[in-house]
């Protein structure tokens, strides 16, 4: 039997990029640090050497113009991928992403497409501090016209990146920096993972945990520990923040009657509010307990290591929340 092919999250992204560029000459990449020795944390390894400066463009620090240049190139037949090493820099590019890219197809009568992919790296952990590690998927999912996903493992990182590059709409991908070294099974051939499809990672009957990005591995860990306490948790990786896979979530919660949303962003007007609203609108009367949300505190992340460790929720806090939801101690 053939051994499973294991790649890191970072290299799954490199491979997807390489394959997309082989598949289609209109695929170009633009970002800062594309040719330095770090290869954007390994996620661009081998790409510049193979494709050269016309297809792998080193960007000046001009986020808004570069996003717009991607839009203009996309309107004229290219499929640009923009990489921002730190998610927070995307605020500088919002005029082009929100006012232009997300609206052009609709506003111009459906006659043009803007096939751009924006890779945003959440630098969570190791003292990255308040301007290097925000999780902004909730904000982007607010706007019609964008596809928003947040792969939590190497397999999905490759499939979702390929799906984004060959999508005719603007796509935003959030990559958790702490996930980059995570290894997983990654088929060698190019393949697609769709938007709007959540994944049930573990079946359960007592409660549903919907988790995002780097809280997904924590949720799986929590579910395994909960088993020993006799609690059977169903773990769902949300995968896409826009659109949200309502069907998978609702079917699960219909069965379990209890919902915990564990999200890496803030609770207010966040994706956790959205999923909570979904459950209350569609499953009113069928819930055995109020929906619970576990998010980061409503404060920027502090840099100091002790405080940072406290700031991010982990499997222990997920377990605690599950105990409250189920009444088990």
């Amino acid at each position, binding site marked *: 039997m053939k051994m499973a092919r294991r790649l890191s999250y970072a290299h799954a992204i490199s491979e997807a990029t390489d394959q997309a560029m082989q598949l289609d000459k209109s695929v170009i990449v633009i970002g800062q640090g594309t040719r330095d020795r770090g290869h954007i944390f390994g996620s661009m390894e081998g790409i510049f050497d193979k494709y050269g400066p016309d297809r792998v463009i080193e960007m*000046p620090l001009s986020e808004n113009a570069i996003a*717009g240049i991607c839009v203009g190139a996309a309107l004229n037949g290219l499929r640009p991928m923009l990489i921002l090493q730190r998610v927070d820099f995307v605020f500088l590019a919002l005029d082009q992403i929100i006012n232009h890219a997300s609206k052009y197809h609709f506003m111009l009568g459906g006659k043009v497409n803007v096939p751009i992919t924006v890779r945003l790296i959440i630098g969570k952990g*190791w003292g990255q501090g308040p301007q290097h590690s925000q999780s902004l998927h909730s904000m982007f999912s607010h706007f019609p016209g964008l596809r928003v996903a947040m792969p939590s493992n190497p397999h999905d990182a490759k499939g979702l990146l390929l799906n984004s590059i060959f999508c005719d709409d603007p796509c935003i991908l959030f990559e958790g920096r702490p996930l980059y070294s995570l290894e997983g099974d990654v088929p060698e051939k190019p393949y697609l993972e769709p938007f709007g499809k959540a994944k049930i990672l573990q079946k359960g009957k007592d409660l549903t945990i919907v988790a995002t990005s780097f809280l997904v591995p924590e949720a799986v860990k929590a579910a395994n520990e909960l088993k020993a306490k006799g609690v059977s948790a169903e773990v769902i990786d949300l995968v896409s923040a826009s659109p949200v896979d309502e069907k998978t979530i609702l079917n699960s919660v219909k069965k379990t009657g209890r919902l915990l949303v564990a999200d890496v962003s803030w609770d207010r007007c966040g994706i956790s509010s959205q999923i909570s609203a979904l459950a209350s609108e569609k499953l009113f009367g069928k819930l055995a307990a109020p929906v619970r949300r576990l998010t980061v505190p409503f404060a920027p992340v502090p840099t100091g290591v002790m405080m940072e460790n406290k700031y991010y929720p982990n499997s222990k806090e997920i377990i605690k929340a599950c105990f409250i939801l189920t009444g088990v101690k």
Partner: protein
Amino acid sequence: MKNTDKLGILKGMIRIRLVEQYIARRYPEQKMRCPTHLCLGQEAVPAVFGAFAQKKDVFVGTYRSHGHYLAKEGNLLSLFAEILGSSKGCSHGYGGSMHIMDESVNFYGTSAIVGGGVPIATGAAYAFKYRRDPQVAVCFIGDGAVEEGAVYESVNFAVLHDLPVLYVCENNRLAVTTPIELRTKNTKIFNRFSDLGLKGISVDDIEIDKMIDAAGRAYELARKGKGPCFIEVSAHRWATHVGHDYEGPAEYWHQDPHDKDAFSCPIAALVRQLVDRGKINMQDIKALRGKINEEIERTFNKASGFALANDSDFEDKVYASGLLSKLPKKTIKGAGKKYMHKEASKLVNPF
């Protein structure tokens, strides 16, 4: 290339002016229900740059772009239909006057965000250069746009990559209603990009020969791969920022183009030159205006008869494609074992 002779340019200018005057006349009827920004007084730039454009060249305009659309051989009926809110409009009624889009003439979506089209035109130029295609992207902006950071960012990128893009700045000294003196110390715009390496030139829109010369050279350089160019054109906006009011000699320039009140009118300036040289007479102008006005009236009436766009399936129109994309059909190589069990590089910036 279209007619770059002065008679052709003159006809283009007059047509744009008469269309805008017609819109102004009918605007109070409340049938054109969208913010409408007229280019009355500023017809020279679109006419001249349109005359030099090839069909494959791309124009990116602003919210004040009726003239640029017509100059790019845009369809008058589609323009009227769009402003009137019909699905037969060039943007199917979804855009209105500020968002004119017509891929059949490579007129690419005008933006209501000042300076918003500048990166987009620059990106279009990158695509042309990438494909080794001798196309030019022409980006029209006003003096307000050069206060936006994205313009500097875009110019820097265009110069760095020698992109075939022309930045044409119609300096009417107004941003909405704020005069340029309240917005900047140095009111000369064209040379403020020179430190970035951008070639710049400044002309007045009544100096039609200079403008024609500048436009012709800029197109040629861009098409030959010699990089971008910035052309500042001093112009006068007779129209209010938005809406149908306007002043200036629009109503009487054609009675006597030598009248001193018509001095700021680029059309009168060109007519004076052509009349003085015996290329045209005022009877010709009268006949031309009559013919164009008849076309406008007929076209507007036709557009007025179109049903208004009345879709309800807005949510179905947001995305161009579904949730699952399609991979191109091509056999390619994977990375094999190259990345297997290999730690991602932590060099330079380990975290």
